[in-house]
């Protein structure tokens, strides 16, 4: 066990955080500080509480017990909407809104009165490797990979400082996965803090520098990716990933 207590200098710190639904424990006594330099991965078997952990960070849910801090302040005291502007989120499925790519990209900026020129939107599309002509396209005609890239661009349009991603490439083909991974690396190099939930060990190796390992609602380990993959062989890692049901 190598958990770390939160400190005020951390981007996020969770102190004794528990989350349960109707008596079912999802997360238990999580104490961890996340200082994202590069990309942080959250890994663990199915049902370990990874997505719940991520949702706590942008207040889509609140802990049943404990405190979640963002830049040293308890997020319970922060306005949810303003917090979510700073902490963008990309869900497992793109969940685009009816209309064009442009209307989707402008959804967040309209809330925050951020003005965008078409040229700036094209630049945003370029970040996620989509051509300028996508701007006026209806979302109905886009492939799964393209939709997920629009979803990523839509979150970026809010100009967040942190980006949370919940298994964003699960339903995508290898090409789309590679494009999204390259985009994330590029964003991280530009200073955007990225925290990604993934079930893929290969993706964890390729992308992340730090990782948090969750199992059955407990924080098992916080370490660097390099250290994790050096310390454990494949067999050991796969045994970690077996949940209660052995899946």
């Amino acid at each position, binding site marked *: 066990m190598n958990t770390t207590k939160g400190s005020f200098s951390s981007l996020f710190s969770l102190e004794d955080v528990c989350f349960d*639904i*109707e008596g079912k424990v999802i997360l238990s006594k999580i104490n961890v500080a996340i200082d994202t330099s590069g990309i942080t991965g959250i890994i663990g078997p199915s049902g370990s509480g990874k997505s719940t952990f991520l949702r706590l960070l*942008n*207040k*889509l*849910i*609140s802990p049943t017990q404990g405190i979640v801090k963002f830049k040293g302040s308890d997020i*319970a005291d922060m306005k*949810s*909407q*303003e917090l*979510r*502007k700073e902490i*963008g*989120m990309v*869900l497992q*499925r793109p*969940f*685009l*809104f*009816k209309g064009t790519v442009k209307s989707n990209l402008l*959804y*967040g900026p309209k*809330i*925050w009165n951020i003005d965008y020129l078409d040229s700036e939107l094209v630049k945003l599309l370029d970040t996620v490797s989509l051509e300028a002509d996508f701007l006026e396209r209806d979302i109905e005609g886009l492939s799964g990979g393209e939709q997920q890239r629009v*979803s990523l661009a*839509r*979150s970026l349009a*809010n100009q967040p400082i942190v980006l949370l991603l919940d298994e964003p490439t699960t339903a995508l083909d290898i090409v789309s996965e590679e494009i999204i991974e390259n985009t994330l690396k590029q964003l991280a190099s530009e200073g955007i803090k990225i925290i990604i939930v993934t079930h893929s060990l290969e993706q964890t190796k390729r992308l992340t520098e730090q990782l948090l390992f969750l199992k059955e609602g407990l924080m098992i380990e916080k370490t660097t990716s390099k250290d994790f993959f050096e310390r454990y062989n494949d067999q050991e890692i796969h045994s970690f990933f077996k949940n209660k049901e052995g899946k």
Partner: protein
Amino acid sequence: MVPQFLIDIWDSLSQTSIWIRIGLAFILLVVLIGLSFWQKTKLESKFFWSFLRGTIQVVLFGSILGLIFGVRKIWMLYLILFFMCLFAGFTNARSYPYPRMFLIGFFAITSSSLVIMTLVMFSYVVPGFDGIIPNETGTIAGLTGEYVIPIGSMVISFAMRVSGIAVERAKSDIIKSKGSIEAALALGDSPYRAIQNILRDCYRAGLTPTINRVASLGIVTIPGLMAGMIIGGIPPVEAAIYQIVIFLMLLSASFITSIITNILFTRQFFTEKQQFDINFLNKIAKMENQTTRTLLKERWKKWREKIKRKKNSVETTE
């Protein structure tokens, strides 16, 4: 002394023709239940109990209609309308058994219907106008149950029906679109804005049938009220205009009720922290699973089991 309305009921029930009509209605009800079984709509028990309850209510109501129509006291008229709203709220809560549905429905139906009815009842104060509801004396005393109650019942029942459709639609659409709503919340949107499109579709679903009915007036549909007025000797143009006014009242009351109901109902889906209320979602999901519309067959089974248990317990004690 037996009340007059009971004597009237007895007189009507002693006629053979009324029993033939009941028999015919029963055949149609059996056909409806059969269709429901066939199409697996699980509405069999609802058909049966609604018609049974409705028949008893309408017979009793029809019998005391004469008494109600004679009411001339304004507080009595309001009391009757209030009672109708109470019952409408109760009916809606039974059909859509979601948390706080009775209070929400009752409040929404009462506030919108009574406001509309008050405007209509007191429209005679406009100089040179005898009121939307005919008021020959031009005073409060001129308002009688004969006009106020039937119009009130139309307004209240429409408001009840349309708001019910809107709530049901809102509930299922919010659950269906949970991911999109969460995506909007994650972008910093408020819950109200995040579900605005859903609410818009709910109002459309509730109001469109009535709007279509208005659009087809005189060609496809001749409303009962207008037909009755013409038969009663009112000039057709006057009856037609009257009908249009009634439709506008119905639409206004329905729309206002739907808005109030949906705002109050959908608020429960979210917490003050602009999150989905997981406990409320779970409660709704549980309600979905415990289907309240039990099949007649299931009720029959339960009843037989109950009788068996009673028999067994009697035998054991003996």
